[in-house]
Protein backbone atom coordinates (compact mmCIF):
# COMPACT_ATOMS: atom_id res chain seq x y z
CA UNK A 1 0.00 0.00 0.00
CA UNK A 2 1.47 3.30 -1.02
CA UNK A 3 1.69 6.43 1.03
CA UNK A 4 -0.75 8.45 -1.02
CA UNK A 5 -3.72 6.14 -0.49
CA UNK A 6 -6.50 7.89 1.41
CA UNK A 7 -6.77 7.31 5.13
CA UNK A 8 -10.25 5.84 4.86
CA UNK A 9 -9.02 3.00 2.63
CA UNK A 10 -6.20 2.30 5.04
CA UNK A 11 -8.58 2.16 7.97
CA UNK A 12 -11.02 -0.12 6.19
CA UNK A 13 -8.19 -2.45 5.16
CA UNK A 14 -6.85 -2.61 8.69
CA UNK A 15 -10.32 -3.24 10.09
CA UNK A 16 -11.00 -6.08 7.65
CA UNK A 17 -7.60 -7.61 8.39
CA UNK A 18 -8.33 -7.53 12.11
CA UNK A 19 -11.75 -9.08 11.53
CA UNK A 20 -10.27 -11.88 9.43
CA UNK A 21 -7.62 -12.53 12.08
CA UNK A 22 -10.20 -12.62 14.87
CA UNK A 23 -12.49 -14.98 12.92
CA UNK A 24 -9.55 -17.24 12.16
CA UNK A 25 -8.49 -17.23 15.79
CA UNK A 26 -11.95 -18.17 17.00
CA UNK A 27 -12.29 -20.88 14.35
CA UNK A 28 -8.96 -22.38 15.37
CA UNK A 29 -9.97 -22.11 19.01
CA UNK A 30 -13.20 -23.97 18.29
CA UNK A 31 -11.44 -26.68 16.34
CA UNK A 32 -8.87 -27.32 19.06
CA UNK A 33 -9.21 -30.69 20.79
CA UNK A 34 -10.57 -30.31 24.27
CA UNK A 35 -7.84 -31.26 26.69
CA UNK A 36 -9.06 -33.31 29.58
CA UNK A 37 -8.60 -31.57 32.89
CA UNK A 38 -5.47 -32.84 34.57
CA UNK A 39 -5.86 -34.09 38.09
CA UNK A 40 -2.48 -33.53 39.62
CA UNK A 41 -3.08 -36.07 42.35
CA UNK A 42 -3.75 -38.72 39.78
CA UNK A 43 -0.98 -37.91 37.38
CA UNK A 44 1.89 -37.20 39.73
CA UNK A 45 2.26 -39.82 42.37
CA UNK A 46 2.69 -38.38 45.83
CA UNK A 47 5.84 -40.35 46.47
CA UNK A 48 7.40 -38.64 43.52
CA UNK A 49 6.49 -35.22 44.76
CA UNK A 50 7.87 -35.94 48.23
CA UNK A 51 11.56 -35.34 47.88
CA UNK A 52 12.76 -37.87 50.41
CA UNK A 53 11.88 -41.23 48.93
CA UNK A 54 13.24 -43.23 51.88
CA UNK A 55 11.02 -41.51 54.40
CA UNK A 56 8.05 -41.90 52.11
CA UNK A 57 8.74 -45.62 51.76
CA UNK A 58 8.92 -46.03 55.52
CA UNK A 59 5.67 -44.12 55.93
CA UNK A 60 4.06 -46.38 53.35
CA UNK A 61 5.14 -49.46 55.22
CA UNK A 62 3.84 -48.14 58.52
CA UNK A 63 0.57 -47.11 56.95
CA UNK A 64 1.10 -43.45 57.81
CA UNK A 65 1.45 -42.16 54.32
CA UNK A 66 -2.13 -41.07 53.97
CA UNK A 67 -3.48 -38.97 56.79
CA UNK A 68 -6.62 -40.03 58.59
CA UNK A 69 -9.75 -39.62 56.54
CA UNK A 70 -7.90 -39.23 53.26
CA UNK A 71 -8.18 -42.05 50.80
CA UNK A 72 -5.92 -42.63 47.85
CA UNK A 73 -7.49 -41.35 44.69
CA UNK A 74 -6.78 -44.44 42.68
CA UNK A 75 -7.13 -47.73 44.47
CA UNK A 76 -6.51 -49.81 41.37
CA UNK A 77 -2.92 -48.65 41.05
CA UNK A 78 -0.74 -49.49 44.04
CA UNK A 79 1.42 -46.68 45.34
CA UNK A 80 4.91 -48.02 44.88
CA UNK A 81 8.01 -46.09 45.83
CA UNK A 82 10.29 -45.01 43.01
CA UNK A 83 13.80 -46.40 43.15
CA UNK A 84 16.69 -44.94 41.22
CA UNK A 85 17.80 -47.18 38.37
CA UNK A 86 14.90 -49.62 38.65
CA UNK A 87 11.56 -47.93 38.14
CA UNK A 88 10.40 -48.12 34.55
CA UNK A 89 7.90 -46.30 32.38
CA UNK A 90 7.09 -43.57 34.85
CA UNK A 91 4.84 -40.77 33.82
CA UNK A 92 7.80 -38.43 33.73
CA UNK A 93 11.24 -39.93 34.03
CA UNK A 94 13.19 -36.90 35.26
CA UNK A 95 15.23 -37.57 38.35
CA UNK A 96 14.11 -34.50 40.26
CA UNK A 97 10.74 -32.87 40.55
CA UNK A 98 11.85 -29.36 39.63
CA UNK A 99 13.04 -30.49 36.21
CA UNK A 100 9.86 -32.34 35.41
CA UNK A 101 7.77 -29.34 36.40
CA UNK A 102 9.92 -26.75 34.63
CA UNK A 103 10.26 -28.60 31.34
CA UNK A 104 7.33 -30.98 31.16
CA UNK A 105 4.29 -29.84 33.09
CA UNK A 106 5.06 -26.13 32.76
CA UNK A 107 7.04 -26.25 29.54
CA UNK A 108 5.09 -23.34 28.13
CA UNK A 109 6.47 -21.03 30.84
CA UNK A 110 9.98 -22.05 29.89
CA UNK A 111 9.24 -21.17 26.27
CA UNK A 112 8.14 -17.73 27.46
CA UNK A 113 11.30 -17.28 29.51
CA UNK A 114 13.45 -18.17 26.54
CA UNK A 115 11.54 -15.63 24.46
CA UNK A 116 12.12 -12.92 27.08
CA UNK A 117 15.84 -13.67 27.07
CA UNK A 118 15.85 -13.52 23.28
CA UNK A 119 14.22 -10.08 23.33
CA UNK A 120 16.71 -8.81 25.92
CA UNK A 121 19.68 -10.06 23.89
CA UNK A 122 18.27 -8.53 20.71
CA UNK A 123 17.84 -5.18 22.47
CA UNK A 124 21.41 -5.21 23.75
CA UNK A 125 22.71 -6.08 20.28
CA UNK A 126 20.59 -3.35 18.71
CA UNK A 127 21.90 -0.71 21.12
CA UNK A 128 25.52 -1.65 21.36
CA UNK A 129 26.75 -3.74 18.45
CA UNK A 130 28.55 -1.70 15.86
CA UNK A 131 31.69 -1.35 13.82
CA UNK A 132 35.02 -1.95 15.43
CA UNK A 133 37.06 1.01 16.57
CA UNK A 134 40.73 1.52 16.04
CA UNK A 135 42.61 0.11 18.98
CA UNK A 136 45.43 2.40 19.99
CA UNK A 137 46.55 2.26 23.55
CA UNK A 138 45.27 -1.10 24.58
CA UNK A 139 47.74 -3.30 26.40
CA UNK A 140 48.09 -6.78 24.99
CA UNK A 141 47.34 -9.52 27.50
CA UNK A 142 50.31 -11.60 28.47
CA UNK A 143 51.20 -14.97 26.99
CA UNK A 144 50.14 -16.78 30.16
CA UNK A 145 46.69 -15.22 29.92
CA UNK A 146 46.39 -16.16 26.24
CA UNK A 147 47.41 -19.81 26.69
CA UNK A 148 45.58 -20.23 29.98
CA UNK A 149 42.24 -18.96 28.69
CA UNK A 150 42.55 -21.17 25.62
CA UNK A 151 43.18 -24.27 27.73
CA UNK A 152 40.49 -23.50 30.28
CA UNK A 153 37.98 -22.68 27.52
CA UNK A 154 37.92 -26.32 26.41
CA UNK A 155 37.26 -27.56 29.93
CA UNK A 156 34.60 -24.90 30.64
CA UNK A 157 32.85 -25.60 27.33
CA UNK A 158 32.80 -29.33 28.03
CA UNK A 159 31.43 -28.71 31.52
CA UNK A 160 28.65 -26.53 30.15
CA UNK A 161 27.70 -29.22 27.65
CA UNK A 162 27.74 -31.77 30.47
CA UNK A 163 25.40 -29.62 32.54
CA UNK A 164 22.73 -29.31 29.89
CA UNK A 165 22.99 -32.84 28.49
CA UNK A 166 22.48 -34.26 31.97
CA UNK A 167 19.71 -31.79 32.74
CA UNK A 168 17.15 -34.47 33.48
CA UNK A 169 19.45 -36.35 35.87
CA UNK A 170 21.20 -33.61 37.81
CA UNK A 171 20.03 -30.28 39.21
CA UNK A 172 21.31 -28.36 36.23
CA UNK A 173 19.64 -27.59 32.98
CA UNK A 174 19.77 -25.40 29.94
CA UNK A 175 20.12 -21.98 31.54
CA UNK A 176 23.14 -22.67 33.80
CA UNK A 177 24.81 -24.71 31.06
CA UNK A 178 24.43 -21.90 28.56
CA UNK A 179 25.71 -19.36 31.08
CA UNK A 180 28.78 -21.51 31.77
CA UNK A 181 29.51 -21.73 28.03
CA UNK A 182 29.14 -17.96 27.69
CA UNK A 183 31.59 -17.36 30.54
CA UNK A 184 34.09 -19.59 28.74
CA UNK A 185 33.74 -17.42 25.66
CA UNK A 186 34.19 -14.34 27.86
CA UNK A 187 37.53 -15.85 28.87
CA UNK A 188 38.51 -16.05 25.20
CA UNK A 189 37.69 -12.34 24.85
CA UNK A 190 39.91 -11.50 27.81
CA UNK A 191 42.79 -13.59 26.52
CA UNK A 192 43.33 -11.90 23.18
CA UNK A 193 42.76 -8.40 21.91
CA UNK A 194 40.56 -8.32 18.85
CA UNK A 195 39.05 -11.76 19.23
CA UNK A 196 36.02 -11.83 16.97
CA UNK A 197 33.46 -14.62 16.97
CA UNK A 198 31.04 -14.93 14.09
CA UNK A 199 28.20 -12.74 15.37
CA UNK A 200 25.80 -13.60 12.55
CA UNK A 201 26.56 -17.29 13.00
CA UNK A 202 25.77 -17.02 16.71
CA UNK A 203 22.44 -15.36 15.94
CA UNK A 204 21.51 -17.97 13.31
CA UNK A 205 22.50 -20.84 15.60
CA UNK A 206 20.45 -19.36 18.43
CA UNK A 207 17.38 -18.93 16.23
CA UNK A 208 17.70 -22.50 14.95
CA UNK A 209 17.81 -23.91 18.49
CA UNK A 210 14.83 -21.76 19.46
CA UNK A 211 12.96 -23.16 16.46
CA UNK A 212 13.95 -26.69 17.55
CA UNK A 213 12.21 -26.04 20.87
CA UNK A 214 9.01 -24.97 19.13
CA UNK A 215 9.21 -27.89 16.67
CA UNK A 216 9.50 -30.36 19.56
CA UNK A 217 6.44 -28.71 21.11
CA UNK A 218 4.51 -28.94 17.82
CA UNK A 219 5.43 -32.61 17.50
CA UNK A 220 3.80 -33.11 20.88
CA UNK A 221 0.75 -31.17 19.65
CA UNK A 222 0.30 -33.35 16.59
CA UNK A 223 1.08 -36.72 18.19
CA UNK A 224 -0.36 -36.44 21.72
CA UNK A 225 -2.85 -33.58 21.17
CA UNK A 226 -1.21 -31.15 23.52
CA UNK A 227 1.46 -28.54 22.99
CA UNK A 228 4.79 -29.56 24.55
CA UNK A 229 3.50 -32.97 25.58
CA UNK A 230 5.95 -35.78 26.21
CA UNK A 231 5.82 -38.01 23.14
CA UNK A 232 8.82 -40.24 23.80
CA UNK A 233 9.08 -43.26 26.11
CA UNK A 234 10.37 -42.37 29.54
CA UNK A 235 12.60 -45.38 30.13
CA UNK A 236 14.34 -46.32 33.34
CA UNK A 237 14.80 -43.45 35.76
CA UNK A 238 18.45 -42.45 36.05
CA UNK A 239 19.55 -43.58 32.59
CA UNK A 240 20.97 -41.07 30.15
CA UNK A 241 18.37 -42.05 27.56
CA UNK A 242 15.33 -41.53 29.71
CA UNK A 243 12.72 -38.93 30.60
CA UNK A 244 11.40 -38.65 27.08
CA UNK A 245 11.84 -35.27 25.47
CA UNK A 246 13.25 -33.45 28.51
CA UNK A 247 16.81 -34.14 27.40
CA UNK A 248 16.10 -32.88 23.88
CA UNK A 249 14.48 -29.67 25.13
CA UNK A 250 17.30 -28.99 27.56
CA UNK A 251 19.85 -29.45 24.77
CA UNK A 252 17.92 -26.93 22.64
CA UNK A 253 17.65 -24.45 25.55
CA UNK A 254 21.31 -24.84 26.44
CA UNK A 255 22.53 -24.15 22.92
CA UNK A 256 20.14 -21.20 22.60
CA UNK A 257 21.12 -19.58 25.90
CA UNK A 258 24.83 -20.18 25.29
CA UNK A 259 24.75 -18.57 21.84
CA UNK A 260 22.56 -15.74 23.12
CA UNK A 261 24.72 -14.79 26.09
CA UNK A 262 27.86 -15.08 23.96
CA UNK A 263 26.29 -12.63 21.51
CA UNK A 264 25.49 -10.30 24.43
CA UNK A 265 29.09 -10.46 25.65
CA UNK A 266 30.32 -9.89 22.11
CA UNK A 267 28.19 -6.83 21.56
CA UNK A 268 29.12 -5.44 24.98
CA UNK A 269 32.84 -5.90 24.57
CA UNK A 270 33.29 -4.67 20.99
CA UNK A 271 33.81 -0.93 20.88
CA UNK A 272 31.19 1.19 19.22
CA UNK A 273 32.36 3.68 16.66
CA UNK A 274 29.71 6.32 16.86
CA UNK A 275 29.87 8.53 19.91
CA UNK A 276 27.06 9.42 22.22
CA UNK A 277 25.86 12.87 21.46
Amino acid sequence: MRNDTPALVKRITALSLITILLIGFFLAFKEMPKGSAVNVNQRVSRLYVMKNVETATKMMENGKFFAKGIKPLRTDVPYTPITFGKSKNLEDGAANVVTSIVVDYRGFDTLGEVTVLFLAATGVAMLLFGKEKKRKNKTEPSLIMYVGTRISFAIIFLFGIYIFVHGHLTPGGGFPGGAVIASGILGLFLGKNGYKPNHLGLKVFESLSGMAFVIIGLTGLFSVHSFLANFLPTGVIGDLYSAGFIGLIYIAIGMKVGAELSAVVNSMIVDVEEEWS
Partner: protein
Amino acid sequence: MIIYVATLIVIVVIMLALIAVFSKKLLSAIIASGFVSLGVSGLFFFLQAPDVAITEAAIGAGLSTAIFIIALKKVKKGESKDEE
Protein backbone atom coordinates in the same frame (compact mmCIF):
# COMPACT_ATOMS: atom_id res chain seq x y z
CA MET B 1 26.84 -27.03 62.45
CA ILE B 2 25.37 -25.99 59.12
CA ILE B 3 23.25 -23.32 60.79
CA TYR B 4 26.39 -21.55 62.05
CA VAL B 5 27.93 -21.61 58.56
CA ALA B 6 24.67 -20.26 57.10
CA THR B 7 24.51 -17.51 59.74
CA LEU B 8 28.09 -16.52 58.98
CA ILE B 9 27.30 -16.38 55.27
CA VAL B 10 24.21 -14.26 55.92
CA ILE B 11 26.19 -11.75 58.00
CA VAL B 12 28.93 -11.55 55.36
CA VAL B 13 26.35 -11.13 52.59
CA ILE B 14 24.61 -8.29 54.44
CA MET B 15 27.93 -6.51 55.02
CA LEU B 16 28.90 -6.91 51.37
CA ALA B 17 25.52 -5.60 50.27
CA LEU B 18 26.00 -2.52 52.48
CA ILE B 19 29.43 -2.02 50.92
CA ALA B 20 27.89 -2.31 47.46
CA VAL B 21 25.32 0.34 48.27
CA PHE B 22 27.43 2.87 50.17
CA SER B 23 30.88 2.66 48.60
CA LYS B 24 32.07 5.67 46.60
CA LYS B 25 34.00 3.65 44.02
CA LEU B 26 31.79 1.96 41.46
CA LEU B 27 34.27 -0.83 40.78
CA SER B 28 34.34 -1.97 44.41
CA ALA B 29 30.54 -1.79 44.48
CA ILE B 30 30.35 -4.10 41.45
CA ILE B 31 32.81 -6.59 42.94
CA ALA B 32 30.95 -6.55 46.26
CA SER B 33 27.67 -7.30 44.48
CA GLY B 34 29.37 -10.20 42.70
CA PHE B 35 30.39 -11.63 46.07
CA VAL B 36 26.82 -11.09 47.31
CA SER B 37 25.66 -13.33 44.45
CA LEU B 38 28.21 -15.96 45.41
CA GLY B 39 27.08 -15.97 49.05
CA VAL B 40 23.44 -16.08 48.06
CA SER B 41 24.12 -19.08 45.83
CA GLY B 42 25.68 -20.83 48.81
CA LEU B 43 22.56 -20.04 50.83
CA PHE B 44 20.39 -21.48 48.05
CA PHE B 45 22.45 -24.66 48.23
CA PHE B 46 21.87 -24.90 51.98
CA LEU B 47 18.14 -24.43 51.40
CA GLN B 48 18.12 -27.51 49.12
CA ALA B 49 17.71 -25.68 45.85
CA PRO B 50 20.84 -26.75 43.97
CA ASP B 51 19.49 -25.82 40.55
CA VAL B 52 18.89 -22.20 41.58
CA ALA B 53 22.32 -22.19 43.23
CA ILE B 54 24.05 -23.27 40.02
CA THR B 55 22.19 -20.66 37.98
CA GLU B 56 22.94 -17.90 40.48
CA ALA B 57 26.64 -18.79 40.60
CA ALA B 58 26.98 -18.94 36.82
CA ILE B 59 24.93 -15.86 35.93
CA GLY B 60 25.00 -13.65 39.03
CA ALA B 61 28.57 -14.13 40.14
CA GLY B 62 30.17 -14.83 36.79
CA LEU B 63 28.59 -13.22 33.77
CA SER B 64 26.76 -10.22 35.17
CA THR B 65 29.78 -9.03 37.16
CA ALA B 66 31.90 -9.13 34.02
CA ILE B 67 29.25 -7.34 31.99
CA PHE B 68 28.90 -4.65 34.69
CA ILE B 69 32.65 -4.09 34.66
CA ILE B 70 32.66 -3.76 30.86
CA ALA B 71 29.77 -1.30 31.05
CA LEU B 72 31.58 0.71 33.74
CA LYS B 73 34.64 0.90 31.50
CA LYS B 74 32.56 2.21 28.59
CA VAL B 75 30.79 4.77 30.75
CA LYS B 76 34.08 6.09 32.13
CA LYS B 77 35.46 6.43 28.60
CA GLY B 78 32.50 8.59 27.62
CA GLU B 79 32.89 10.77 30.72
CA SER B 80 36.54 11.52 30.08
CA LYS B 81 35.77 12.47 26.48
CA ASP B 82 33.14 14.91 27.61
CA GLU B 83 35.52 16.57 30.03
CA GLU B 84 38.13 17.07 27.35
